[in-house]
């Protein structure tokens, strides 16, 4: 008899406890979005940093993207250790990408361009795009030495 009642009591206690709990209001961070507006993309850029051992050093940032020396926009915003995305529809050709890292200055409440000596090096890469396939370029930046490594795949 007691064994039969035990689950009921357990769930009752759980229900009351959950009812009493104050649920904090939480605004979820913006997830990296694959833009629905750019349906026929053929280029995706992903960037993230490695070598971060202290969370205090893992700052919110984004990369400003220049393609063929034209301001093409920026990546999504995330922690340096997180993947940040940029997508575009490019002509079938060889292209030059130059990146510029911007980091949040929390005291000022705004993003500021990282000093040139702390920018990833190299900060450019030449890549090829095709109309029918997706070129994915990954920038892996070792934050300790600011050394960037570009990995390109064509899918």
């Amino acid at each position, binding site marked *: 008899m007691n064994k039969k009642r035990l689950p009921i009591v357990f769930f009752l206690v759980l229900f009351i406890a959950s009812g009493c709990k104050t649920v904090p209001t939480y605004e979820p961070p*913006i997830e990296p979005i694959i833009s629905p507006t750019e349906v026929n993309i053929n280029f995706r850029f992903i960037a993230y940093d490695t070598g971060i051992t202290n969370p205090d050093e893992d700052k919110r940032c984004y990369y400003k993207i220049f393609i063929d020396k034209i301001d093409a926009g920026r990546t*999504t*915003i995330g922690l340096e250790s997180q993947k940040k995305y940029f997508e575009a529809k490019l002509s079938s050709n060889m292209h030059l990408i130059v990146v510029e890292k911007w980091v949040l200055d929390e005291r000022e409440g*705004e*993003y500021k361009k990282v000093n040139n000596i702390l920018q990833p090096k190299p900060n450019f890469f030449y890549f090829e795009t095709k109309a029918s396939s997706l070129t994915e370029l990954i920038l892996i930046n070792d934050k300790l030495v600011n050394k960037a490594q570009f990995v390109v795949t064509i899918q």
Partner: protein
Amino acid sequence: MKKRFLLYVLSPIVIVLLLHGCKKEKIVEIEPNDTYSQSNLIEIGKPIDGFINTESDIDFYCVEVLNPCLLDINVSAVKGVNSAFTIWRENEGSIVPLKYVDDLRKSAPERFRGFYAEAGKYYISIAHGDKDQPVKNTENPYTLLIQYESAEGFEKESDDTILAATPIQIGIPVRGYYSPAFNKTNTNAVNPNREEDWFTFYVEDAPVVCDVELSGVAGIEAQLDIVDAQGNVLFSSASQGVGVSQMAKGIGLSVAGNYYIMVAAKNYNANNDVPYSLICTTRDYDNTTEIEPNNIMESATPIITEIIYGRIYPDNDIDYYQYMGDSSHDIFYRIEIIPPMTLDVVSAVYTKKGEEITSINNNGTGDKEVYPNVKLNAPFYVKVWAKRGQVDMDNSYALRIVPVQMENLVDVEPNDTKEQANNVQGALIHGYISKKYDIDFYVLHYKGRQKKYFSIEAHAIPISFSVTDALGYILQTVTVKAGSSSTLHEIVDMKGYCIVKPLNEMYDGLYTIEIKDRP
């Protein structure tokens, strides 16, 4: 020879007789005169001497008044004695006290000028005052002198209470004396022993606005109050200084009936020589001026016209107005207060529930206060007052409230923080730098990542425009000069904010933001 002899003999006799006739006759009290039935009959204009023979001595005098007049009753000072006197009137075989006069000072005269007497018998009893230990003085007499003057145009003392108020006619001045200094029968806890003169006038056609002017009298700091029939104080003057006139302007009388005016001297001062003059006038209410008292929200003056005028008087005066506009939905209003050169006005706007929406205080003395875009649902309230200590009895401020007809005006104050940001629905934002250093936040919501092109135009005031990420951290900022425009483009990751800030302390400046998908 015989004629000359008679001339020599009779001339000295005639001269002596003439001199004897010219000598002033000194009248002295006849004791016992300790009760009114033993009183000494005296004549108006003829002085009589008397003594405070014992500590408890009372001297009664009787005077017969043949025609209505004002009596000036004067009892001279007696060294070391605080004398006092009471005026009585005979009434059906007994006497009733009408006025007790005692200035509470030793060796000082007592005087009451302006006592209104109908025809009949009056009694004056002179005795020791209450304040000091009673003493006798059998060496130095007092002199009682009663004189009279015409009562035409004067108050009718004793009019010390609202029930005994002297009726006055609107537009006809009435005079009165700040006399005597004390009224012992006034037991009002706030102003005990204050000598008050009450007047009453009747308003037949309401609503009307009344103005009351009280002339200044040397040595007197006057107090002027206006009270309705329910005892509500409609106006109470503030301190204006000694010898200065008092004025109550624009007092709204909303219902027909009796109203009352109280005149008194502050600090128990008296002036038995110069009367004050009081005049009350009324005028039709034309909806262009405030109706005092409007010091609380419940008695706010309704605003019917676009502009309404008010005065900051007396000190610490607060004026509430109720705007009765379109109550079907929220509307933007432009609120302006144009003060006289003497005032630094402050204003605040409240909802009909009394919640403060905003305060308006950007400028200094003599400068206009403006709030260009208050969004409210009528009725709402506007409160106007001046910086501490500032009054202007003569000059009005103007309060102007006009609806703002502008499409895409989405700047709903307060939107000074990210949490108060206005939600942007369309592609066009009109906003105002509403006050000094006003910051406007707008929040943008899109599906997914969207690149947006922002075109910003500053019409009158240089501004900075920023776009932020979803958390409100600034991604880009552009400055825009007054009278010019700038553009920027930024990617909005589902959510972002626009922030507009003025680049100087100017305000009342319109700006426009256009948000496009293409350059």
